Structures are given as structure tokens and as C-alpha cells.
């Protein structure tokens, strides 16, 4: 049933995170080796993506941004078609037109991905309005960063969603960075969740590197959005473990802070908890990582084999 909450199976969540990790590691390696397009990595933020996405129903819509690989893979996107897209090939989800920064997969409900910071906030209200009229079981999850929260469109979007009673789960992935600028250079409050008060919108901050915590918070928030048909702001507190864009540029990063956050790795935390609970062994985990790695290798082979678009298709799909 669409409005039932999804299960919070930690082992499944770990497997999903492992796939994202393997994907991001592969991409980082390719980018470092050169001759590969720039990519914004979600490495280290897997718990936020998996924690929220795993709690959504199939009918729900997702809007994401430039840092989308986690959201897409958690939703079940094929890493082969994703890599093909990143590489500008015909079999990419967007036929190579998007590249890495705005991958939409309408068949999975991942719609209107925009790399304009705040673009997802601008479009989510309309997607939600359409759901209320045409698809009233569905809600919309809108992922955005702490940087996007500084854009005026954040204010306009949350206000309209509240005034119009739109069923949107706003998910602010606060990773403490906005490209080359630290979050704390850009705002005086530590938490973006506190900004929801202006819109009379319920909000919550959660440890974004604890996939179970995210799942529980998301499950409750989603239930509330479904029940009230009103928006909710969920802030997942996490950290950008790599540079803004691959290839990684560590010049301006904060080594001490990185070291602290390395101790909060979402995969290791989930792994350790499963081992503690006797539900996983180290060997199981190694196996899981190996499987994820193998899937990504196969995906890369698929992408590499995918043809380039033909120059003659340059002006396809401009108008409907």
C-alpha cells in the first residue's frame, strides 16, 4: 500500500550505501586519472540519501541536484546508465545531454533535476501541486544543500508550500560546505531546520551519518506529510568528505575537521552496529563491498560500450 511506511532494514540500507560508495570511489578514481568529466561526489553522505529515499513509496517524486548519485542509486537507478550519462553517452538516462550534473530518471520518479542551486526548490512546489490534483497519494521529496538554503528561492518555496499545503518533504543535506565556501561563512545559525519556523513548518535536524536515525526521522516526517498534506523540513547533518568537484582539490579543505568526520563514516557505523547485533560478519561486509564493486565495474563496462550521440541529433528534443 502506498501510504504504508517502508521497512527500516539496516542490512539493506548498508548494501545500498555500499553501492553508492563503490560508485563514488570509482568515479573519483576515473576523474583523478583524467579525461573524465567533472562530478560532484556524494561520498560520505550515503546515509542521508539512503535513509530518506528508502522510506519513500514508489509513487512519490524526488527532486535532486548536482550531488545526486546517492539519491539516484538509493532509488534503484542503474549505475551503468548513470555512468553512461556522466560520460555523455547515448545510453545515459538523459541520452548524454545532461552529463553528471542534472540526471533525471522520470521512470523512477526522479524528476526535473537541476544544477542551478535552488532549482529543485523552485520546481518542487509545482510538482507537489500537480500531485495534489492528479496523484493524491504521492508526496514529493526535495533534496537540497545548505548552500541552496541561502538562495532566495528557499524562502519563497517553503513559504508557498506552507501557505498552499503542499505535501513536500524538504531534505536539507547540510554538509558544511558550499562549493569553496564554508557553511558558517554564510549564515549565523548552526541549523537550517530552525529557519522553518518562519513558515510555520515542522522541522527536525538529524545525524545525517547515521542511516538508522535518518530512516526513523524520514519515516516519521513522511508519515506526517502524508497525513497532514503539509510540508516538513528535515535537515540531515553530514559532511562533504571530498572537494566540491572531482577531481578532488584538497587545497582549501580542513584536515582536522575531515579527520573527525572520518570517524563518523556512515558505512562503518552501520556495519559495526550490524556486527554488534550479530546480523553481519566482517566477511559478509567484505563480500558486500566486493559485490558492489563488481556491479560498478560492470556498469563502467556498459557505459564505455555505449555509443556517443550523433552530431545530427544536436537539436532533438527542444520542443515537445
Amino acid at each position, binding site marked *: 500500500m502506498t501510504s504504508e511506511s517502508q521497512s527500516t532494514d539496516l542490512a539493506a540500507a548498508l548494501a545500498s550505501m555500499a553501492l553508492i560508495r563503490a560508485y563514488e570511489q570509482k568515479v573519483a578514481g576515473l576523474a583523478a586519472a583524467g579525461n573524465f568529466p567533472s562530478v560532484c561526489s556524494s561520498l560520505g553522505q550515503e546515509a542521508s540519501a539512503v535513509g530518506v529515499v528508502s522510506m519513500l513509496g514508489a509513487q512519490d517524486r524526488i527532486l535532486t541536484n548536482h550531488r545526486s548519485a546517492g539519491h539516484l542509486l538509493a532509488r534503484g537507478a542503474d549505475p551503468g546508465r548513470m555512468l553512461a550519462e556522466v560520460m555523455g553517452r547515448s545510453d545515459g538516462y538523459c541520452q548524454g545531454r545532461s552529463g553528471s550534473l542534472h540526471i533525471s530518471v522520470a521512470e523512477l520518479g526522479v524528476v526535473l533535476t537541476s544544477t542551478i542551486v535552488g532549482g529543485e526548490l*523552485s520546481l518542487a512546489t509545482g510538482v*507537489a501541486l500537480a500531485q495534489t490534483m492528479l496523484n493524491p497519494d504521492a508526496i514529493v521529496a526535495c533534496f537540497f544543500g545548505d548552500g541552496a538554503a541561502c538562495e532566495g528561492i528557499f524562502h519563497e518555496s517553503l513559504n508557498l508550500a506552507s501557505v498552499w499545503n503542499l505535501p513536500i518533504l524538504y531534505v536539507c543535506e547540510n554538509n558544511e560546505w558550499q562549493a569553496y565556501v564554508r557553511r558558517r561563512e554564510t549564515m549565523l545559525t548552526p541549523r537550517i531546520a530552525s529557519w522553518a519556523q518562519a513558515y510555520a513548518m515542522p522541522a527536525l535536524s538529524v545525524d545525517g551519518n547515521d542511516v538508522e536515525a535518518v530512516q526513523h526521522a524520514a519515516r516519521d516526517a513522511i508519515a506526517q506529510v502524508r497525513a497532514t498534506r503539509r510540508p516538513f523540513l528535515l535537515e540531515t547533518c553530514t559532511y562533504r568528505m571530498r572537494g566540491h568537484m572531482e577531481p578532488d582539490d584538497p587545497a582549501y579543505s580542513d584536515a582536522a575537521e575531515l579527520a573527525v568526520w572520518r570517524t563518523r563514516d556512515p558505512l562503518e557505523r552501520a556495519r559495526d552496529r550490524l556486527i554488534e547485533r550479530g546480523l553481519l560478519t566482517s566477511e559478509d561486509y567484505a563480500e558486500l563491498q566486493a559485490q558492489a564493486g563488481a556491479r560498478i565495474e560492470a556498469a563502467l563496462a556498459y557505459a564505455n560500450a555505449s555509443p556517443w550521440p550523433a552530431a545530427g541529433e544536436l537539436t532533438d528534443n527542444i520542443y515537445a
Partner: protein
Amino acid sequence: MQTMSLYEAVGAALTEEMRRDPTVITFGEGVATKRPDLVTEFGALRVRNTPLSEAIIAGTAAGAAASGLRPVADLLFAPFLTYAMDALVNSAGKLRYMSGGQFRFPLVTLAMTGGGWCVGAQHNHNVEAWFVHSPGLKVVMPSDAADCKGLLKAAIRDDNPVMFFLDIGLLYERGPVPAGEHLVPLGSARVVQAGEQVSLVSYGKGVRACVSAAELLAEQGVSAEVIDLRSLKPLDERTLLQSVSKTGRLVVVHEASRLCGVGAEIAAIVAEHAYDRLKAPIRRITGPDAPAAASYVLEQAYMPQPAAIALAAQQLMAAPAARTLDKETVL
């Protein structure tokens, strides 16, 4: 036939299309207040007031359009579009292409433009050329009530984002409007008046100035053809080129600033595709490259005047026709 203003024609088109198609909705700052009849007939969910937030109005329209609705968003005055450019240009105009065709954006954006109300450059600024220059959009600007209704109905049915500009100076001008299924396809210009010696090409209230100029010219023995482009994108190049091929002379007229305006595009198309039919230079009579002043006197001086259009045409009649005559003799 019924007589109505362009403002009423917008209401008529909205009413008919909202009756026909339950996915058509409309919203904007004061839309529900100013069109109470629509609220009564279609309810407060399909006809909405919004907060003062142009960016999210446009974004909501784009998001809704891609999700199965057909929004008509009223953004009031064209300069306010400056707040809404991301949603219109980067989302509605591009995300179909960028997603490999996964989405379509059947949305209409209404905006008033041009002089006539002495409200100055932050209300009166003709920016239609921006959107002609941007990929994935269509751009429409009617010059009378009948076209206004017919073009708006076609725009609402179009599966693409349409920028629909309403010339402020014409908004309360009344004219006959066919009842019911009156559709004017986007991309078709109208030969307002046929003529032989010079083509006067315009849109919006420039059309009226051209008609007046044609009258002046007729008095002076010059036969002018007047063309109303109606749709600036897609542009009816065929009607344009046919006319210029016939007359050999072109005056393009609009209130928008000259540089990189629609007139520049028209001139460039003709200089490329009808070069060998030209008998004289191409002239543009446009608004100056200046903000619009509020003062009545300056606002009037800003707008293309019939006398200036007629004078330009006369100058073309006197231009180095020698060149073309030679060619005609030879070919």
C-alpha cells in the same frame, strides 16, 4: 461578433480552456481577486492568488507543467520577469532537452509590457527579445483582442512554455472577437494590409503605428504592406520573406530597444535570405536604447510614431534603387 478588450479576451480564453481541460489552472499575484468569475466557476484551487514571489510562481508553473498540469502564470509586468528568469530559462526552456526529452512544459506566462501608463522603466520594459534568444521557449504578442484570445487559447494547448506578452497600451482597447473555438496558431504572421512597395513589419502596438504610417504613405502614393508577426518565436519567416521579396523594402518597427531586438533578427533573416530581392537598406524604427521615462511627453517620444515610420519608408523609396534596377535590367 462580440466586442471585448484584450484584458477581457484573456479572461475569455482562460474560461474556455479551463472548461475544456480540467488540468488548466491559473495563478499569480491577485489573479483570484481580479478574476472573481473564474474563482466562482472553477474554484479556489484552480484560480489562486500567490504571495509576492515571482521566482516561485514561475518555478511552480514549470514544475506543475512537467507533472501533468497546464498552468497559466500571471507575472504582471515584464520587468518583474527578472525575478523569474531561472525557472523560465534554465528550467522550462532547457530541462526537456537536457533530460533527453523526459519532460514537457505546457505552461503560459503572462506579462504586460510597453508604454501607455506613464509608470516608468521598472514597469515598462519590452524584454520579449530575451526569450526569443533563449532556447526552448515560444514568444507571442497579440495586437488586437481577437488575436489575443486565439493566440492565448493556442498557447494554453501548446505543449511548450509560451511567453505571452500583453501590450499595456492595447490592454483596454476593444475589438471584435469570434466566440468559441477561435484559435490562432503560434508561428503564423498576419498580412494586415497588402501592399507593393515597402513592407512594414511589426507586432503589438507597433502594428497600429504601421497601419497609420501606411495611410500616410498611401497619401504620398506609396503602397505599403503591413505585417503583424503575432508570434515572435516561432517566427513566420515565410510570410516575412514573401512580403519583402515582393516589395524589396523593409522597415521593421517595435517599441523594444533596438540592439539585439526582434527587429535585428528580422533584418538579419532578410539580409541573409532575401538579399537579392532588396532594393534598399533595411531600416529599424524602434524604441531608443534607453530606459522608459514615466513622463508622458518622454513616454510618447519613446514609442515609434507613424510619421517616423512613413519617413523611413519614403527614404527607402528614394534610396539607391539604381543597384536593383541594374540587376533587374540584367537578370
